[in-house]
């Protein structure tokens, strides 16, 4: 099933966006092909169990959201020494061959309706390019959304034996009415390079978000993800790694904290395609009020992925009996030389812990908040970038409303 395309989503609109950014023909073509494909593409997959779609994306009224020509944002890019952190139009001037080689190589623009919409309409983009052998400091990209809709695109290319950490934040300025944020992130990690990409999504709760982040890791490369989701009314987010290279590795650390009627549909996926690959997926979430989380974890071990290690843990803490936590951690194993495990738990704040603390004179509400904060510690401990860890922790504390 596909969604009716808004009448202003025309070829003219796409040509205008592309022209404003002074894009080469190949990119305009890619946009136009994505636009063309919209009428035939499906929404991204959501989990279905009998009688039920876990997230209803078709209910979104894209017509009222999408207005790419009025896109407005405040962008902040911090470029440490040795790295190129460029807006996409600058990148097309300076490194067109890199953009052309990697754009759409990790995420097919026509993968689904929402990726195609993003590819056709993005107005905001960043290239992070790390040359061979460079160990870069923290790259920071901060996007503040100032319009009804915003389509953001990030491309990360690391050459052989380089390393970089990237922190990307999404925020929004107050605006009336419902809004839409879409972000695609492609990471091509070269041989023996090391990438940590952290994201902190804290847009307002009138905004619907769709983000797809996918990395490929060449031989002995590492792609690590930190995925923090705090804001948004409905979040559909997937963080994925293709372990293409021998000995490549990935670690995904996810954290979400939902309240009111927020809906988080988060996925962590990894494909082991080569020998000696390692993956570790860790997600923790807290739900309050009527918030709902949907978690899908996939560990896919291919036929040629000898000597694989793959682990997945997901824990959800429910603070309210009106919240709902759904989970589906999946293992797909095609190679027997594998050590794989996953676990998922759902529970509430431990009564005994609470009793212990209140009996020591800690007021009930404070004790509960301390336990919730403590619940995130094992995840926060995995975050290598101090700034991101502190930001995430601050957001959690803020939500707890001390």
């Amino acid at each position: 099933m596909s969604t009716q395309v808004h009448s202003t989503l025309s070829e003219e609109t796409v040509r205008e966006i592309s022209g404003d950014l002074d894009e080469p023909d190949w990119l305009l073509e890619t946009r136009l092909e994505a636009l063309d494909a919209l009428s035939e593409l499906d929404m991204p997959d959501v989990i279905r169990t009998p009688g039920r779609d876990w997230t209803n994306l078709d209910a979104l009224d894209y017509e009222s959201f999408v207005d790419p020509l009025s896109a407005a944002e405040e962008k902040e890019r911090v470029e440490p020494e040795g790295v190129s952190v460029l807006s996409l139009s600058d990148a097309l001037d300076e490194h067109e061959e890199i953009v052309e080689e990697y754009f759409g190589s990790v995420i097919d623009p026509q993968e689904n309706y929402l990726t195609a919409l993003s590819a056709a309409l993005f107005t905001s983009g960043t290239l992070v390019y790390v040359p061979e052998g460079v160990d870069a400091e923290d790259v920071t990209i901060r996007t503040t959304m100032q319009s009804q809709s915003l389509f953001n695109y990030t491309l990360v290319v690391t050459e052989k034996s380089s390393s970089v950490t990237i922190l990307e934040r999404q925020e929004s300025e107050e605006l009336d009415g419902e809004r839409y944020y879409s972000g695609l992130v492609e990471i091509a990690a070269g041989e023996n390079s090391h990438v940590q990409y952290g994201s902190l999504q804290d847009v307002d709760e009138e905004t619907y978000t769709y983000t797809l982040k996918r990395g490929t890791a060449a031989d002995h490369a590492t792609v690590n993800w930190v995925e923090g989701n705090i804001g948004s009314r409905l979040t559909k987010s997937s963080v994925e790694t293709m372990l293409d290279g021998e000995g490549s590795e990935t670690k995904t650390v996810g954290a979400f904290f939902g309240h009111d009627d927020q809906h988080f549909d988060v996925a962590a996926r990894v494909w082991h395609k080569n020998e000696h690959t390692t993956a570790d997926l860790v997600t923790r979430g807290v739900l309050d009020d009527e918030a709902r989380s949907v978690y899908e974890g996939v560990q896919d071990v291919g036929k040629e992925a000898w000597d694989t290690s793959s682990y997945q843990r997901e824990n959800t803490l429910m603070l309210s009996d009106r919240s709902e936590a759904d989970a589906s951690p999946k293992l797909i194993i095609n190679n027997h030389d594998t050590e794989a495990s996953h676990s998922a738990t759902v529970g509430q704040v431990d009564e005994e812990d609470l009793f212990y603390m209140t009996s020591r004179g800690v007021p009930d509400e404070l004790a509960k908040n301390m336990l919730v904060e403590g619940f995130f510690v094992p995840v926060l401990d995995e975050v290598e970038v101090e700034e991101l860890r502190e930001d995430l922790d601050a957001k959690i504390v803020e939500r707890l409303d001390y």
Partner: protein
Amino acid sequence: MSSDQDHLKETDTEERFEFKKEQRAAVKSDKGLTEEVVRLISEDKDEPEWMLQRRLRALEHYQNMPMPTDWPGQPDLSGLDVEEIVPYIRPDVDKRGGADDWDDLPDDIKDTFDKLGIPEAERNALSGVGAQYESEVVYQNMQEQWEEKGVIFCNMDEAVQEHEDLVREYFMTKCVPPSDNKFAALHGAVWSGGSFVYVPEGVTVQMPVQAYFRMNSEGMGQFEHTLIIAEEGSEVHYIEGCSAPKYSAFNLHSGGVEVFVGEDAHVQYSTVQNWSKNTYNLNTKRAIVEAGGRMEWVSGSMGSKSTMLYPCSILKGRGASANQISIAFAGEGQDIDTGAKVYHNAPNTNSTIESKSISKDGGRTNYRGLVHISEGAVDSSTSVECDALMFDNESTSDTMPYMEINENRVNVAHEATVGKIGDEDVFYLQSRGLDDDDAKQMIVSGFIEPITEELPIEYAVELNRLIELEMEGSLG
């Protein structure tokens, strides 16, 4: 262990399951699924009008429902053509509703069950036995001591005649309605045979009752229905076994099982299924458990080409519980997609699921499970544990659990692990003088022990024996 091993060597299991008999049919329906076939079955059974109407309604559901094709990673059903299936064969046995003496059966049918060891098991260990050949139950007996206490154990067709009120109330109305899924609808239209078990309030049937299902004809479908009603405070253990020889054409088994577990009652349902490797095994099994009741599913899934089976427990009353222990073994060309479904619909309900699978020679096993905790099911807990053992790189083992949690005062845990057979373990055993095959066999026996110890000894031995045959690759 050594005496078990010796015992296993002495019995030729291949001969026990793989023998074929000439078809003996008194009534045989046409191929395919039409209203005529449904009417023929109902007429041949001399059914009351309401049952015919239920069959026809189920047929309508069947015709209106799509084949399940879009489940992630589901078995390939493209080789299944229901239009080529003969849904009904009544063997030419004199006595309708089954003989109550093995000697009254025609020699070749009696011989079939002798080879399967059923009469011997009945004498030694069981409270009663039902034996189904093709579409009809050919033997049915219940020990007198249970009959005196009001326990009913008869075949389903007889139950429709003799216990019409109970069947009319419970048959595919509350537990497995034909609208549930495509194959439940199919089953509702052409069901034949199966068992009816009724245990009155407070009665404990100490020894298991058993039903054995044998498919002998090429290209047939078997659609037995099992209805178990355990009244308040009663207890019963029901065991079913099944087998079919292998033919070049495919067979279809689409049974239906409905279990009603009354307040504080306890039902155990054990299966060792060993359908031939051209059989599509698409079953629907479900239990409704009242307050304080306990449902236990124990199953070993060995045979079949493709299995899609997810026994379901609906925990309806406060304090109800369900336990499920299962083992699946998939060898060459087999796709065993099985798991568990539990709905926690009341407070203080509890479920445990323990699933083990072994895949070998390109076989695929998948655990597919759903745990649903409804709002209000406070203080409920569930734990799911899946372990998979893989022998080689041609095989596949997947785990696809789904958890829907609507209540916060609960305890939910899911764990799964996959691993190859431990080289160190094999090496250790080899260094103690076992050859490679025996070492692996021993590791598998240890792996599945939690299942076998829940089964009566005959079944545990049979399961071990079947697995040993699979390990040798001598079957199929």
